[in-house]
């Protein structure tokens, strides 16, 4: 165990820069938001206990971003990896290779090292019946969440070993400039992208014994930040740029 290089970089340099770059100056304190008109009358005994939402819908895409304060500066909370193994629909032992690969990539095990908050590798099960290939409760994917120093270690190995050696990778795809960002993903503060199976073999944790794994798996990486509201995803991209992750416009 040693001091985390990227965590130090965030606290020494990146946090200040991101605060300056994402600062929105507000001249006055905000007026309180108008109470929305709800769809059903909460007093009416017929509709009292119904799920009541605003008349125009939840409008999550229009959530305003919180006021810029020093406590509110965007930071990376966790990195989540997710892999779906289609072959596991018929044979659940196919998941084992993906579980072991994620275990090597993340270093996470269930309550490993005495840390009771770490859940380790989670199995993803189907939620609903679709297309004849999935049904509720069918284990079909693998996921893991990393926080703290382990998260920064993974980020470091991704940026230094994997992304430079990927073929035809110019950067994480950004949405078109004209596309509206008032969407659930636009206000989420989460940046996601996928890696092909060839990328898994480039991680040093796996590269050292690639032959031990039955096959390589493509997977998604989700960078989860504490930002939410308008421009949250743009701010998350600015943060990740500071960790040397490239972004490119979708062509």
């Amino acid at each position, binding site marked *: 165990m040693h001091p985390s290089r990227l965590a130090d970089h965030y606290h020494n340099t990146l946090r200040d*820069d991101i605060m300056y770059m994402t600062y929105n100056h507000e001249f006055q304190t905000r007026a309180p938001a108008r109470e929305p008109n709800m769809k059903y009358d909460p007093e009416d005994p017929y509709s009292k206990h119904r799920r009541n939402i605003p008349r125009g819908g939840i409008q999550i895409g229009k959530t305003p971003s919180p006021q810029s304060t020093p406590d509110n500066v965007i930071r990376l909370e966790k990195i989540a990896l997710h892999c779906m193994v289609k072959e596991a629909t018929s044979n659940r032992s196919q998941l084992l290779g993906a579980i072991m690969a994620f275990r090597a990539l993340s270093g996470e095990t269930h309550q490993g090292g005495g840390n009771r908050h770490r859940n380790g590798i989670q199995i993803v099960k189907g939620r609903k019946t679709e297309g004849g290939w999935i049904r509720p409760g069918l284990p079909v994917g693998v996921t893991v969440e990393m926080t703290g120093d382990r998260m920064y270690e993974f980020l470091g190995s991704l940026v230094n070993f994997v992304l430079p050696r990927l073929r035809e990778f110019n950067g994480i795809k*950004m949405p078109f400039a004209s596309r509206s960002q008032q969407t659930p993903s636009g206000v989420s503060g989460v940046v996601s992208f996928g890696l092909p199976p060839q990328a898994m073999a480039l991680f040093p944790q796996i590269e050292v014994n690639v032959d*031990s794994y039955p096959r390589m798996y493509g997977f998604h990486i989700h960078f989860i930040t504490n930002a939410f509201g308008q421009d949250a995803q743009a701010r998350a991209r600015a943060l990740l740029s500071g960790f040397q992750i490239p972004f490119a416009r979708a062509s």
Partner: protein
Amino acid sequence: MLRRFTVAALLQNSRLQSRGCTYSTITHNLQTTESTGKKYLIQTAVLLNRSPVLTRSPTSFEAALYQYNSNIGRALFNPFPYDFYFNSGSLLKAQFNKEEKLREKLAFNWAKKTVSKRSTPPSSKTPKTTQYKPSLSPATTTSSDDDAQPMSRTTEADKINDVKSLNRQGHRNLYLLVKRGEGEWRLPGARGDLRDGELLHEAAKRELHAECGINMDAWVVGRHPIGVMDAPLPQELQSSQYGGAKIFFFKVHILAGQIDPTIANLKDFAWLTKEEIKKIVTLEYWNNIHNILSEY
């Protein structure tokens, strides 16, 4: 520079850009304050920052804590999945077990130092025979890494305390201070007025290169100033309609290069940490700038 390109691409059409433009425009329009009715001369100065290039060396307490946590993790780790990686009874598995024992020995070596001479550890009671002594296999330690020694964390500039060098204090944030003619130590910039239609951050970069030369790769952080200071008017504008001057500070990173010492009017310059700046600037100036300097 990769970082500059990606940020530029990000900001090309985003609301962050338009917000920056609006802010600068509003600053121009607010030159006249309502209370005094006087105009203020707007100037830009630059906080030129060399970020840390080395991680901070852990203190003895931190090192002990990291070692302790590492050992706890080792003591409480979940069982290793032997069945996935090795066939039962294979030679590779036996070799792995021997190497793992060696790693444990290395990891918990600190505990053995506290053992008193009277209570001898059980391993010393085993008969000394010629046994196979495992060493960590080439896969785990690369010999090329052992041969290459890392550079010293203290450089020549540290030893002689060369304040003009950018290689000093690798683990700290360094800031540029300049001295003009008979003036005091100040941050560079704040020598002129904005040009017509020029944005604040553009003015900051232009003034920086005018004062310190073009032999450096400088990147302005965003379009927002990070601090403001009231300053006296320059001599030639004393009797004009301006009631005073306001200096807006911009954070700029130096990515490569060095100050050009041959520039006219530049008497002296120094790359200093926050505590060193406190010692050489005036108290009034320090009160204005100390909040924008980093302790790290």
